[in-house]
């Protein structure tokens, strides 16, 4: 596959390394000279180009018309927006992925029809949430244009689902438990799998059912 990365910061550099290790053909466009020199020094199987990733002329010179994937990952949302727009609408690239730095822009990107959007701020927030255990439900991934969420749930000792079998749970419509992780063991769940406090659950859920799912796993306060 031919993959064009727009933006060669830390994310671009790591992504390029990972992709070339998989044997993909990678080209990076970076407009900052210092970063460009770093890229050149650290990457040997990747073509690095110094220039503006929103210039149609440069994109064509980089062969965007034959690119299978374009990833716009600069730290500037407007640059990612224009680069992704050009790749998708003008050059008909099949897979276009863009990074959104400001969470407020996520809606704008998807409203204006720009395929896959990765929201780096929310991603970091969910990791922090996970580490701090602020919530027993963490949204990991949104797929199918926002219709389906992949979430991680923690089974709390005070929850009413604790020590219940999966088949006895009153799961909301359109949700499915995909896996249970117990003490680092991965369990493929069945109807008779018993949920234990401390279990971590991966579930897929329709976007509108996520809140209901969260409630189901809510801790129950003792009556007194």
């Amino acid at each position, binding site marked *: 596959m031919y993959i064009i990365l727009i933006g060669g910061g830390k994310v671009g550099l790591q992504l390029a390394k990972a992709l070339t290790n998989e044997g993909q053909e990678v080209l990076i466009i970076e407009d900052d000279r210092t970063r460009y020199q770093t890229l050149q020094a650290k990457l040997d199987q990747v073509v690095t180009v110094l220039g503006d990733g929103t210039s*149609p002329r440069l994109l064509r010179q980089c062969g965007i018309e034959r690119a299978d994937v374009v990833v716009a990952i600069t730290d500037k949302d407007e640059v990612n927006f*224009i680069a992704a727009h050009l790749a998708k609408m003008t050059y008909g690239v099949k897979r276009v992925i863009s990074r959104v730095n400001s969470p407020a822009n996520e809606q*704008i990107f998807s409203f204006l029809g720009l395929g896959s959007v990765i929201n780096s701020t929310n991603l970091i927030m969910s990791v922090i949430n996970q580490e701090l255990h602020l919530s027993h439900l963490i949204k990991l991934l949104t797929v199918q244009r926002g219709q389906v969420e992949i979430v991680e749930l923690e089974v709390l000792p005070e929850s009413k689902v604790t020590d219940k079998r999966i088949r006895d749970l009153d799961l909301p419509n359109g949700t499915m438990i995909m896996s249970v992780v117990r003490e680092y063991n991965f369990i493929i769940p069945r109807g008779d799998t018993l949920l234990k406090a401390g279990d971590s659950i991966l579930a897929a859920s329709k976007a509108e059912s996520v809140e209901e799912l969260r409630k189901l796993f809510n801790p129950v306060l003792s009556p007194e």
Partner: protein
Amino acid sequence: MKVIVIGSGWVGQKLIDNLLQKEDVEVIVIDNDPMNLNFFVGRERCRTVLGHGTDETVLKLAGIEEAEAFAAVTNNDCINIMASLIARDIYNIKNVVARVYDPELSDIFFNYGLKTICPTTLGASQIKDALLAEF
């Protein structure tokens, strides 16, 4: 009529001066450089908002929901195009103009129905006319 202008460099200042000459026009200027905005403080029928023109919070503060016209004239093509598309497609403003330096980028978004103005093409053609004019 409420007009939002993002970017108040040379073109922005000139544009706003021209707009304010019309009595029924109210201008809201958005710029991320407070020095540029200083120029408009205290002007009649003119309000300034400090911030980025692609930030919805800033646009709402500028009253984008009631605006009838929108011009994006910062020195950054990407910001101009993105802000214009937000104004046109999310806030349904009919009269949206974007300044785009890159002639090709300007053409591409013009073909998507965005009113783009390319100073590069305009300048080049005027200079050509001046050069070839008969004495």
